[in-house]
């Protein structure tokens, strides 16, 4: 495992998201895709964001760059980037942040590149957007250099290729080249390898790690693959139905995951080399984001709730509380009715009846 980099600027986070709420106002109702998300990323750190499909990971990342389109809208919260609340900026001036200071790579590399432009010129565009005076030829050379750097064979000629002429792995490398063109302070990688084969995934993850090391870029790595998290992340935030339910260091997550959902998730993955006869499952399904329950969103599926016979779960929403240094959980098992951390260990819950 590569060594985790230490935050150079002390503990001041480069990005801090507070109580972010992004809703989609659809014909069927309001989809509360992100409903009060809090987390932070420190300089040079890799934060993993995990959760099941549809829990709001992508929407969260898009909200940071304010790329949410109608019918979606960021309805509340704050996104502090280097101390500035991005949500207070005029939307027009977000273009100064995007691509320059915060950049992003997406899950589907091939569809994320414009099919009618050469990949070289799509990289050149990044330079020219943020430095209008830059000479086209200079920009092109820089683009070729970047392609070389991300390991594209024969970069001079591949710069002239159109996206459809690249393989998925190559396209993702082009995306990464584009994202790192201006050496951003923060890189958001939204499931960057889901569409790729295992062997190619390893190459791409390697590349992101390299970027993180060499330029000290902070990374938010979004994935639903706990294996990727284990290999890449320093800290992890677990999302469930539009909320962060647990935030902890990566070791802490696997050794001492506290939230019942986290635990269920970890137990349900088949692990290479350890043969289990039955896999653990999480019964039921994710609640409808339009019609959310009043209490804990995991309550209906929570085995701990049944075990402990907690009724508060279905009535009130627990808070995200720090239960140990650098370890936050959103669960009634660890909170008392007054909103303080309760000294509870999972499996030994007090009966609330």
């Amino acid at each position, binding site marked *: *495992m590569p060594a985790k980099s230490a935050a150079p600027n002390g503990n001041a986070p480069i990005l801090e998201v507070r109580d972010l709420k992004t809703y989609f106002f659809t014909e069927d109702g309001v989809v509360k895709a992100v409903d009060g998300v809090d987390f932070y990323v420190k300089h040079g750190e890799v934060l993993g964001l995990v959760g*099941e*499909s549809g829990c709001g990971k992508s929407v969260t990342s898009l909200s940071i760059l304010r790329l949410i389109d109608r019918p979606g809208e960021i309805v509340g919260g704050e996104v502090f980037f280097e101390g500035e609340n991005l949500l207070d900026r005029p939307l027009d001036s977000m273009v100064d942040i995007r691509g320059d200071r915060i950049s992003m790579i997406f899950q589907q590399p091939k569809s994320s590149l414009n099919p009618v432009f050469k990949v070289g010129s799509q990289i050149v565009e990044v330079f020219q957007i943020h430095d209008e005076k830059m000479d086209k030829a200079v920009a092109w050379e820089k683009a070729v250099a970047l392609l070389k750097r991300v390991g594209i*064979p024969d970069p001079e000629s591949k710069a002239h290729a159109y996206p459809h002429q690249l*393989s998925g*792995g*190559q396209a993702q490398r082009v995306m990464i080249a584009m994202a790192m063109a201006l050496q951003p302070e923060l890189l958001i990688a939204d499931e960057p390898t889901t569409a790729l*084969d*295992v*062997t*190619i*995934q*390893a*190459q791409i*993850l*390697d590349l992101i790690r390299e970027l993180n090391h060499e330029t000290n870029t902070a990374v938010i790595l979004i994935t*639903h*693959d*706990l*294996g*990727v*998290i*284990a*290999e*890449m992340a320093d800290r992890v935030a677990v999302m469930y139905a539009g909320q962060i339910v647990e935030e902890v260091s*990566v*070791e802490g*997550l*696997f050794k001492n995951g506290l939230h019942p959902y986290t635990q*269920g*998730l*970890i137990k*349900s*993955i*088949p*692990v*290479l*080399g350890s*043969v*289990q*006869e*039955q*896999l*653990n*499952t*999480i019964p039921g*399904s994710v609640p409808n984001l339009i019609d959310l329950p009043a209490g804990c969103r995991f309550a209906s599926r929570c085995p701990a709730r049944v075990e402990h016979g907690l009724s508060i779960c279905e009535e009130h929403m627990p808070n995200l509380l720090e239960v140990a240094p650098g370890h936050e959980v959103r669960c009634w098992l660890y909170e008392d009715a007054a909103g303080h951390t309760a000294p509870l260990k999972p499996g030994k819950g007090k009966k609330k009846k």
Partner: protein
Amino acid sequence: MMTAKPLIEVQDLVKYYPVQGGIIPHTVAEVQAVDGVSFTVYEGETLGLVGESGCGKTTVGRTMLRLETPTGGEVRFEGANIFDLKGPALKALRREMQIVFQDPFASLDPRLPIGESIGEGLAIHGMGNGRERYERVIEALSRVGLERYHATRYPHEFSGGQRQRIGIARALVMNPRFIVLDEPVSALDVSIQAEVLNILKDLQRNMGLTYLFVAHNLAVVEHISDRVAVMYLGKIVEVTTRAALFRKPLHPYTQALLSAIPMPDPTLKRDRVILKGDVPSPLNPPKGCRFHPRCPIAEERCSVEEPALRELESGHQVACHFAERFL
């Protein structure tokens, strides 16, 4: 289990897809999707088939069920070559062999209540009257953990995991002996994936089914398979028991594959073999050993001579000139 008799023998299976081109469209090239694949599936076992995207896994499965016309080779079901069957005989065979697809959404007709989807096979084969068919559908549903009232609902009303269970029920209702599971859990979230895998295992145990389990996720394959075959670019490069494969992989590709899998354990330290380059196109596969351009141990010979699938240890076959090094 290993003493069981072979249920299906695949021999030198070849499937090329013609590529049309030219001013007057004609076949200008062939995609060598499957190029001489042989393996045996024993009664009651699960054979895992892994490999990267596009290496021909699906094609193997579909060709075995005659959903594609083979270019060459044989597939014997209990000794009879199914490629020779026609008409009623073929129809009868269809009851024995079933398939569950990767995409749980695309594999169900969106305008049919799922009960009808499941019962369709019974109707096609004229099995039983309406009532009996209905009962069997309900039974199949309950086998996969769904309720009676689900029968009248439509696919879009189900979650991915449920849909995949419906797909399984559709295969089950025919009482088949062999099911090709073509990446049945790849599209699902981990928690749902676990649920489906559990069902598959239970069913196999209870009904004595034989599976060909196609997947690209090695951990999943390891979890469910008795034996595993690894494919690379239309060829099988290694076949062996689950234990042997994960303990002592003999093919450099298998090794790389295993090491490339991110393990959900941050404390684990591994020496990773990161392969260079991309998977080459099956349109124009490399000469000699198809893996040699990316192989860390490739030598001159590999680019000229194609390695045969050799049995190095009992029940452990490898297609590599230098596999002995890893023994």
